[in-house]
């Protein structure tokens, strides 16, 4: 009390403000929260809301003007066979990518969590983190080099005398094409490649949390290693797989760049949204298409929450 008297005026003011806030913790909380909430609430949520509202508008077929009256017409348009096709194709791709990346991710995550120690662990961790954070475009670009008709895959298969196998693969209807870089096989490979780290890390985190004693207990009770793996390790790692699948699934649903660079001419959901809002100028339809991944992901997220996947994030 006495000490406050000796302080210079500037500090006095600081003290008074500090005391005023300390005596009103709610005010302090509000001051801390207002800037981030304003930013995210107004800029992000506000524009998201403005977009979703537009999915209830419709476009006049003759003038091309947007009619600002609430209607469900755009949604009936969304259900046309051609559009449904796109939605299903995208969802199927997302599911396939999720499945494949969990299969490839598991051994890496398992090795990291159970066998790598010290320096090896840091190296593995960095090796997984770096691609996750390094340029997305550069990594997509790398695959354009790899999958090009004159690229390394063609060269390698020719060198190994497997050229006919590659041709056979490419002649499969729907997923094949004239070259890997313009086929669904190519699109699928790149999706798996790009999102793989998002699957490895949550599985690794989940496996890290399985105590060694549980595995020893299982062995002690007479379970052979493959039984321990199937009945003990796999169920405990499952929340990690679900957590990873949230990323792989959501990111595949919304991506429009990978199929644009590597893939066939048949469109994915993200591309349609891009075209509808851009060249086609049909914002209402683009907005309605946007509702699809939001709806799919909210169902997915609530299911994942019930399976306890958020603890593994």
């Amino acid at each position, binding site marked *: *009390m*006495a*000490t*406050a008297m*000796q*302080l*210079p005026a500037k*500090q006095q003011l600081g*003290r008074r403000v*500090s*005391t005023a806030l*300390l*005596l009103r913790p709610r005010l302090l909380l509000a001051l801390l929260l207002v800037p981030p909430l304003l930013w995210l609430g107004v800029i992000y949520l506000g524009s998201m809301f403005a977009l979703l509202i537009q999915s209830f508008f419709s476009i006049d077929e003759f003038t091309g003007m947007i009619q600002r009256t609430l209607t469900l017409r755009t949604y009936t348009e969304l259900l046309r066979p051609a559009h449904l096709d796109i939605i299903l194709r995208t969802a199927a791709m997302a599911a396939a990518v999720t499945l494949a990346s969990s299969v490839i991710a598991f051994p890496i995550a398992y090795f990291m969590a159970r066998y790598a120690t010290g320096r090896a662990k840091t190296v593995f961790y960095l090796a997984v983190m770096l691609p996750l954070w390094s340029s997305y475009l550069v990594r997509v670009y790398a695959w354009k080099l790899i999958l090009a008709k004159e690229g390394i895959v063609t060269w390698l298969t020719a060198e190994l005398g497997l050229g006919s196998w590659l041709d056979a693969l490419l002649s499969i209807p729907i997923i094949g094409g004239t070259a890997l870089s313009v086929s669904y096989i190519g699109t699928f490979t790149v999706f798996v490649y790009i999102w793989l780290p998002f699957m490895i890390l949550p599985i690794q985190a989940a496996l890290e949390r399985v105590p060694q004693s549980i595995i020893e207990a299982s062995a002690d009770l007479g379970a052979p290693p493959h039984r321990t793996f199937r009945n003990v390790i796999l169920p405990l790692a499952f929340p990690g797989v679900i957590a990873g699948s949230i990323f792989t699934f959501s990111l595949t649903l919304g991506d429009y760049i990978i199929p644009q660079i590597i893939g066939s001419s048949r469109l994915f959901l993200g591309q349609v949204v891009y075209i509808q809002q851009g060249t086609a100028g049909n914002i209402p339809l683009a907005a309605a298409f946007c509702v699809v991944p939001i709806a799919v992901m909210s169902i997915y997220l609530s299911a994942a929450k019930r399976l306890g996947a958020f603890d593994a994030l």
Partner: protein
Amino acid sequence: MDSAVRFRNVCLRYGKVVALDGIDLEIRSGEFFGILGPSGSGKTSCLRLIAGFDRPSDGTIELHGRSAAAVPPYDRDVNTVFQDYALFPHMTIEQNVAFGLMVKGVNRRERRSRAGEMLEMVRLEGLGERRPSQLSGGQRQRVALARALVNRPSVLLLDEPLGALDLKLRQQMQVELRSLQRTLGITFIFVTHDQGEALSMSDRLAVFNRGRVEQTGTPREIYEQPSTRFSAEFVGDSNIVERRDPDTRSQEQGVFSLRPEKVHLSTREPVADAHSISVTGEVADVQFHGASVRYVVSVSDGRSMTAVAGNLGSRAELPAVEPGARVWLSWNSDDLHRLRESESR
């Protein structure tokens, strides 16, 4: 003596949880005051209110006769030694000790010399350049003490200050804290759950239970005249004796506390006398404690009583009994101390 801290009907609630429920307390200037209670009894909450980290939901707190309601922690003439010491890991020991001076704008030279004095006082001279992580638990404790005393507060709060130390160090620090307090002459308020520590160190103490004060007084008063069943059982050992005989006079009925060392154990039936009461029972357990021996005896209707006999060597023989032996317990009715039942909630 004027009061350093005064609580008037102080309540503290977190949502529906009641941490303090109507505390009235007066702590006098210059005394070593102990706050004793089991965990969750509200003793740390009480300290946090004095320091100003929390504010009471109800009631008033006065520091040196002035209301502390609108005074933030940094304007209170009170410093704290935290249970986890709360040393700043990014500062050296000297910077930690000089922290209070730095924020007050004391110049560097004076800061160094006063921090040096403090470190000398707690016998840590020469360790000023180290980091907290390089010190042992006992040394950190001393740094925390030096850091809190550098501001020359009128009240020092200590939250379980010795809790993390081993037994030998603890006993040594108990002595040091006492002598430090006598030298400095400032008010020490310390919280502990260890009744031995509270009894041996405090000038006066308050026994806390479930957010209330059960009893305040000198250690001796609390031990000899526990006013509630809780104090009697928490501070030292107690036999609780209930007398509800309709035959006896009303002032002799009620619940009483009887300290085990005041119970005499014998293998023969004692001679009846006007002031003495005796019962018989069977020995359930004999525990050798070195300085004393503790006998647990099952008496009538499944209750058990405890008697403690001092190991006095040749001056008095210890009763040699085995579990299962029939014995008699007797005591002087003056040693029965009537208890007020703890207010039930």
